[in-house]
């Protein structure tokens, strides 16, 4: 059993079900992200682990102990909020020492551990200041130090980077990863930001409408989405209604609009068992654009389509194109080599079948 496990957790608010029968096992020392849009139940789940909400059904265990009836102040966990939630009337040192006072740590030990925690977050000299005198990023580091210094069984982070501005957020992300790896603490991270989840996590739990859509390593979740929701939520994907024609040991053959007929390796369609309606997901960055007159260097099996650039969304490093292919619109994100394709330009779209994913048909 992992450091934290949820077994058949349900949370109802009146007639609204915020979390629907969720089970999750978080291994010791792992960094797990709960990722989803607002209202997907990720924060509700975190608050149940914290003990700020009681589950309607199911069991929660932390470090092997069932904690359903254990109040928050006896769960030994570290909690970091979006808005830092530092105690404004206490100095930074008092803030960090707060949890130690309830653990019978002697004064000398307390001072030493506060000093170490402040060094860990690279703010060793702010102990005598008040939270109001620090910047947002500094306050969030202090909040992290305050949560870690008590050596909690699990660290719970509720959108801790969302209140920071973009540049600072990336610095803090790196910092957070460094501290988490250094301390080796089991961490549950709630976010709606896919890049944060992909960059930080050992495991990502993608949630939607109170359900777990997919659980897996960042790479697996990104490259092999299990559902249309995951394909759309993580990165930019083209989803085409297609028909599965045959399934055999080596491959799956589908026919769809624009792409025509193609055969995918079997492992690209783990959720498709036989012929019938399916959805073909193609990541926008897997559609490679080329000038139609460019020498044809296509490797065997590549699919090449003709398209027309309808809209260009220039992003500096890359550009996002909306293309007309047959009677469907596809989007492609390509790095810009010298200069981007122009609107109205005719292009070739190259696609490797093994970069596509087949999703179960219209069950949504």
């Amino acid at each position, binding site marked *: 059993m992992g450091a934290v496990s949820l077994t058949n957790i349900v949370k109802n608010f009146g007639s609204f079900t915020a979390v629907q029968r969720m089970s999750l096992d978080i291994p010791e020392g792992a960094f797990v992200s709960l990722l989803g849009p607002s209202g997907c139940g990720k924060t509700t789940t975190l608050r149940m682990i914290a003990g700020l909400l009681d589950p309607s059904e199911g069991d929660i265990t932390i470090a092997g102990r069932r904690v359903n009836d254990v109040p928050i102040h006896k769960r030994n966990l570290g909690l970091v909020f979006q808005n830092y939630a530092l105690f404004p009337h206490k100095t930074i040192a008092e803030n960090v020492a*707060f949890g130690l006072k309830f653990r019978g740590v002697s004064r000398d030990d307390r001072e030493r551990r506060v000093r170490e925690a402040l060094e860990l977050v690279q703010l060793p000299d702010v102990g005598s200041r008040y939270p109001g005198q620090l910047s947002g990023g500094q306050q969030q580091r202090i909040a992290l130090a305050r949560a870690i210094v008590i050596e909690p069984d699990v660290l719970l982070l509720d959108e801790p980077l969302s209140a920071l501005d973009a540049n600072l957020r990336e610095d803090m992300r790196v910092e957070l990863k460094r501290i988490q790896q250094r301390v080796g603490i089991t961490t549950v991270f709630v976010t709606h930001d896919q890049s944060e989840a992909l960059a930080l996590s050992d495991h990502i739990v993608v949630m939607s409408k109170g359900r777990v859509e997919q659980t897996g390593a960042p790479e697996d979740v990104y490259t092999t989405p299990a559902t249309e929701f995951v394909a759309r939520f993580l990165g930019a994907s083209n989803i085409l209604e297609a028909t599965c024609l045959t399934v055999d040991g080596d491959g799956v053959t589908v026919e769809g609009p624009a792409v025509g007929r193609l055969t995918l390796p079997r492992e690209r369609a783990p959720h498709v068992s036989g012929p019938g309606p399916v959805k073909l997901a193609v990541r926008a960055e897997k559609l490679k654009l080329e000038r139609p007159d460019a020498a044809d260097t296509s490797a065997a099996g590549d699919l090449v389509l003709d398209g027309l650039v309808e809209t260009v969304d220039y992003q500096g490093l890359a550009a996002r194109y909306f293309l007309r292919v047959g009677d469907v619109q596809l989007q492609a994100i390509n790095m810009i080599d010298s200069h981007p394709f122009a609107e109205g330009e005719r292009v070739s779209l190259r696609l490797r079948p093994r970069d596509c994913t087949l999703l179960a048909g219209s069950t949504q």
Partner: protein
Amino acid sequence: MGWALIRGWTVLVYLFMFLPIAVVVLLSFNASQFGSFPMTGLSLRWFAELAGNEAILRAFRTSIVLGLLTAVISTTIGVLASLALVRYRVPGRNLISTLLIAPILVPEVVLAVALLLFLNALAVNKSFALLLAGHVIFTLPFVILVVQARLVGIRRDVEEAAMSLGASPVQTFFQITLPLLSPAVLAGMLFAFTISFDDITGTLFWKPGGVETVPTQIFAMLRNSISPEINALGTVMIVLTAGLPLLGIAIARRMAMKRGG
């Protein structure tokens, strides 16, 4: 031209409001034995007489004790009520809130008579405790309004953070919520004290025989004659009821400054 008129008018309004008070303060230092102009010299004589007047000193003690008890009880109840109303989902929350604020809206005479009749119906005699209860009811809305406003501004996640670190709900209240609430608690206490200290309408109805507060004592003295002692007493009252809140605001401001805003 228009602005000059407005300015002039404003000055007149302030004069109308503050001149009588200034006159009382000025005359309290008058050496003459008549409490009126012309002044014959500066003297602290009436303050000395005041300090020697047993009835006034007794009224003063009563008022202070009554004011302090009102402040403490009213603030305690007010803080607890605000916590319940702001932090918990109490059924009938709006109704309770309205009822607690209602004493401000009801004319004081009506409130005074109502409480008296109610206690008569229960065959309870007038007592100091009844007087105190009346003052608490009357000052409670002010405390609740001030404390609630502040409590809404204290983020719930600060308390949640404290609990996650191992503080029980009671420890969280005393170490986090109450200190953050302290400016409002202080303001509520000052409100309750000064309102209680000033009050005459309710007090006249509720006080048991033989007990006088400073306002009822002044009222009783005025029925006989206008003694210069009353001017001196008035000056002391003004210093107390205006000075205390000012002092409170200064303390609250200093506390806020220390935390860097």
